[in-house]
């Protein structure tokens, strides 16, 4: 009944479907983390956000995180989805849902899931702001270019 899934999507993330798919009669608790694009970063007003993905590896990497979660915690199901392309400000760019019999596992595994996704899944965010653009990451990744 419960189902794990690992996906990269171009359109809106359906958190309701995510919650539904990880649900099961034996799963007493589900923790969902939703990351939402912000209008501001380090003092810059963001006008547009775009995500680039190495899709085949990103899905594999999410699946590996899901496998590791199932090794470490007694969970029922894990689903992860990342939106790519242009994501409007205030929209969900990422969601991780974990269902488990008990909430300790659901919280710990969901936290591990989003932390590990951020560290390893090959997806890159580019911010467009007044006067430039910028690949988010360490400072050598800055590439401001006059636009306005």
């Amino acid at each position, binding site marked *: 009944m419960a189902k794990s899934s690992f996906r990269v999507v171009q359109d809106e993330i359906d958190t309701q479907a995510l919650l539904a798919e990880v649900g099961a009669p034996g799963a007493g608790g589900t923790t969902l983390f939703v990351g939402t694009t912000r209008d501001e970063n380090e003092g810059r007003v963001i006008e547009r956000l775009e995500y680039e993905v190495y899709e085949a590896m990103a899905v*594999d990497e999410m699946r590996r995180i899901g496998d590791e979660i199932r090794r470490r915690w007694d969970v029922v199901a894990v689903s992860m989805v990342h939106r790519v392309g242009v994501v409007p400000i205030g929209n969900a760019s990422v969601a991780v849902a974990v269902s488990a019999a008990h909430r300790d596992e659901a919280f710990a595994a969901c936290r591990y899931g989003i932390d590990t996704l951020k560290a390893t899944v090959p997806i890159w965010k580019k911010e467009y702001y007044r006067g430039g653009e910028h*690949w988010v990451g360490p400072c050598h*990744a800055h590439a401001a270019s006059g636009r306005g």
Partner: protein
Amino acid sequence: MTVRVLFFAYLRERCGVREIACELPEGATVDDVWRTLLARYDRLPPEAPRFAVNRLYVDKAHPLHDNDELALIPPVSGGL
């Protein structure tokens, strides 16, 4: 042997290329490809990114095989 090399995000933009094919001698490693790329692309930063071969992270000493897909993985920033 031939290896496909994939560029993403700021590395793609800096080098102006998304994918190239590299001809390599048998026994070449990821590091050999990286040195070749450094010589060829002025705008590559000297510090190496992470590397993935056939969708798995590997270290620089990883030996390559014909038809491998080598991806240069600059610092990731999804999940934000």
